């Protein structure tokens, strides 16, 4: 009954999204205010509908109702409660339901927190959100109905892939979708701007909070997935340039460009058209990512043909939304007047260079990801484009972007003094080179590319700190004045420093682990001492026990440095009888400079075990850096300027318009 209620609520959400798409747009074109205000109500109803539907599906998983097809296929009564709940989105149908839930959530949030946005703009934005919703509700209802029942319910479910029964990956999809789907708001604001013809700094200010939320979520989602791969897959890898990873990385890159160009619109009323185009492209790449992953086309062209209904449907939606937005852009953008002027040496140009590099980097990832597919369609040739290509083609562009990110904040708006900028850049280079020398003295040089990488990370860190110091008046002021100024810095400035600083720290971590990692793979007898970099790993013994829905062997590995015990690692090897699959749980101890990492492998029959021991320097910095980058957007979001843009209800009543 509850499941049918969910199905009904889903249909209700579709109806609400149709109303949300049509009525406000008609009202906007006719100047009918009450029709425009339907948008807010429709967004609320739509959200209630989809939230009810999602709740009903979650209920089916929680009570293990195996008459629901996807619960039978993806759940099991003996699963811990957490994974019964997260199992809701660990399958195609449920994850699409989560997708539209996020979409409706953003719609209702715009309606609630966007009361300051004039009703013309707000209702048009919500109308576009509604149009996106219609397509995806139809997709779910027509091709991927999560509420489908089976005639003969099985006694128990088939369980969920044990690799997914992990807290890290359980919350990876909601965060990733927060980003993917969150960029729909940028798309809607861009399309609404083209429809209403209103594009100005106020528009950018209304849009910016939503971009910040989406970008923060996407950053965290990507990092969480990467972290999970690192500790769960058991060999210390964290990024593989797999097409599915690239599908989430492309919106991130273009979204980063959008985040930066929107600042120019807001502060200087320039780059209007370009920002609109970026907003459309960012969400288009999210849609393309959804298509690539959902259609199965990446596995092979032939997998697409085996389930053409879903793939073709998303492809149709993709063509419709992206095509319509681009046509609208081509038609309306010539009427947009570009405002503020700026010199070649200016913050505006700096942000344009960021945009250029992010877009080029995204283009390389796009070409590399789709090239094998395109080639196979054209002449049937099968080639592979793997990590070596991306490392060679993408990383240099990203390296240049990081160099530019160091200088960018030195440039002042409108017209920067070239001599000052160059002098500060030279100072940055000297300090970074000096620190590089120290690093080499301590850690030694392994390869020249790594050397360059370390320099770039140092450059960005030094430049960011230098800019912060200059901003608070150091070294010319007393410490207490400097401290007061630091506290008084606007939150958006903190966003900049945290974001760029986080990137420097994360990059340093990536480079450190690529250059200085120590790895030993060996058959080990209990008690045997293995040297890994500066550490010695000793396998103490293995203990067999059981968990809630698995059996497990837990090894005890003691790690020594210079004869003193540093840590005891507990790597596990689990066996999930329902799914008939093993998983490995790495034993990890995080130190400030790196991770000690041990993986328990198969027994060799003679009392020994295949062990993988690693010392991964820099890895904790990677996660710290990613966390800082993600937080930087939220800090920026709390800036006063944006709070004025998204005020409380009570103030909206007092404030008739912008």
């Amino acid at each position, binding site marked *: 009954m509850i499941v049918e209620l969910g199905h009904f609520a889903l249909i209700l959400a579709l109806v609400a999204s149709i109303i949300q798409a049509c009525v406000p747009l008609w009202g906007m074109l006719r100047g009918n205010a009450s029709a425009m205000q339907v948008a807010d109500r429709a967004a609320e109803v739509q959200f209630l509908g989809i939230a009810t539907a999602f709740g009903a599906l979650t209920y089916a998983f929680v009570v293990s109702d195996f008459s629901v097809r996807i619960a039978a296929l993806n759940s099991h009564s003996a699963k811990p409660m957490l994974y019964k709940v997260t199992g809701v989105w660990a399958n195609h149908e449920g994850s699409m339901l989560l997708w539209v839930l996020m979409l409706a959530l953003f719609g209702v949030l715009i309606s609630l927190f966007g009361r300051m946005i004039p009703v013309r703009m707000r209702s048009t934005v919500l109308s576009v959100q509604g149009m996106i919703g219609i397509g995806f509700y139809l997709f779910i209802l027509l091709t991927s109905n999560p509420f489908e029942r089976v005639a003969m319910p099985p006694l128990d479910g088939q369980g969920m892939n044990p690799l997914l029964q992990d807290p890290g990956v359980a919350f990876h999809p909601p965060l990733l979708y927060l980003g993917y789907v969150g960029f729909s708001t940028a798309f809607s604001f861009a399309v609404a701007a083209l429809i209403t013809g209103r594009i100005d700094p106020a528009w950018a200010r209304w849009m910016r909070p939503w971009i910040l939320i989406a970008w923060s979520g996407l950053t965290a989602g990507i990092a969480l997935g990467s972290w*999970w791969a690192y500790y769960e897959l058991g060999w210390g890898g964290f990024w593989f340039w797999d097409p599915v990873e690239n599908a989430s990385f492309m919106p991130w890159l273009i979204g980063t460009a959008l985040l930066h160009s929107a600042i120019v619109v807001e502060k200087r009323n320039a780059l209007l058209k370009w920002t609109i185009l970026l907003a459309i492209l960012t969400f288009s790449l999210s849609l393309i990512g959804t298509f690539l992953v959902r259609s199965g086309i990446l596995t092979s062209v032939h997998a697409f043909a085996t389930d053409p209904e879903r793939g073709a449907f998303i492809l149709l939606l993709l063509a419709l939304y992206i095509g319509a937005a681009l046509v609208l852009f081509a038609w309306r953008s010539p009427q947009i007047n570009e405002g503020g002027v700026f010199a070649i040496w200016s913050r505006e140009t700096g942000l344009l260079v960021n945009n250029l590099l992010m877009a080029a980097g995204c283009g390389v990832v796009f070409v590399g990801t789709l090239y094998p597919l395109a080639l196979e369609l054209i002449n049937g040739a099968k080639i592979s484009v793997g990590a070596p290509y991306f490392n060679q083609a993408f990383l240099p562009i990203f390296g240049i972007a990081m160099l530019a990110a160091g200088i960018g904040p030195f440039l002042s708006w409108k017209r920067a003094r070239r001599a000052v900028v160059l002098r500060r850049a030279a100072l940055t280079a000297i300090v970074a080179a000096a620190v590089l020398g120290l690093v080499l003295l301590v850690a030694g040089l392994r390869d020249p590319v790594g050397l360059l990488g370390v320099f770039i990370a140092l450059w960005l860190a030094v430049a960011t700190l230098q800019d912060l110091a200059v901003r608070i008046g150091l070294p010319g002021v007393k410490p207490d004045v400097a401290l007061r100024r630091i506290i008084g810095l606007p939150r958006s400035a903190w966003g900049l420093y945290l974001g760029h600083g986080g990137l420097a720290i994360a990059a340093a971590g990536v480079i450190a682990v690529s250059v200085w990692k120590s790895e030993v*793979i060996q058959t080990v007898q209990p008690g045997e001492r293995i040297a890994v970099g500066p550490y010695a790993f000793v396998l103490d013994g293995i203990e067999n026990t059981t968990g809630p829905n698995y059996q497990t062997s837990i090894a005890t590995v003691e790690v020594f440095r210079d004869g003193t015990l540093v840590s005891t690692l507990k790597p596990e090897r689990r066996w999930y009888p329902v799914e008939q699959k093993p998983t490995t749980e790495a034993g990890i101890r995080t130190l400030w400079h790196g991770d000690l990492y041990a993986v328990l492998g198969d027994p060799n029959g003679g009392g020994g075990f295949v062990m993988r021991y690693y010392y991964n320097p820099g890895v904790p910095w990677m996660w710290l850096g990613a966390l800082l980058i993600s937080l930087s957007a939220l800090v920026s979001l709390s800036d006063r300027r944006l709070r004025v843009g998204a005020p409380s209800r009570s103030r909206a009543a007092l404030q008739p318009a912008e």
Partner: protein
Amino acid sequence: MIRHLSACLLSAAILMLSLSIPALALDPGEMFDNPAQEARARDIGRQLRCLKCRNQSIFDSNAGIAKDLRVVVRERMIEGDSDSEILAYVSERFGDYVLLKPRMAAHTYALWSAPLVLLGLGSFFLIMYLRGRPLTARAQVLSDEDRARAQHLLDGEGSQ
């Protein structure tokens, strides 16, 4: 199939293909004693794709064919082949599909030139844009719409 797994899973739990077993790929029995030689074997292994897997190098894969290919790589190394000779040896037998780093040829020119072409085109447009901009600000005027709204407000009817 570790990389295959990460592929499916990193992706927002989308695309749940049939997932296979994450056993440890490299078997200590097949390894070289000399660390430098072993490192070289792994570097080569990372550039070759496991044929059974979706996007995984033979170094990371535990599939039987990946192990066979690792053994082939080690044999060629003992024979004294250079890295590129070994890669050519394997791709002659299994096709370009095994090369994770596509070789430079007519059908991959577009791929390999992509970074330079994209950067070049981008820079070109950027420079054209920066040079073509008017150097004086256009006077900021109210749009008709804003004017109408201002009038509307002046008439005391509110905006919402």
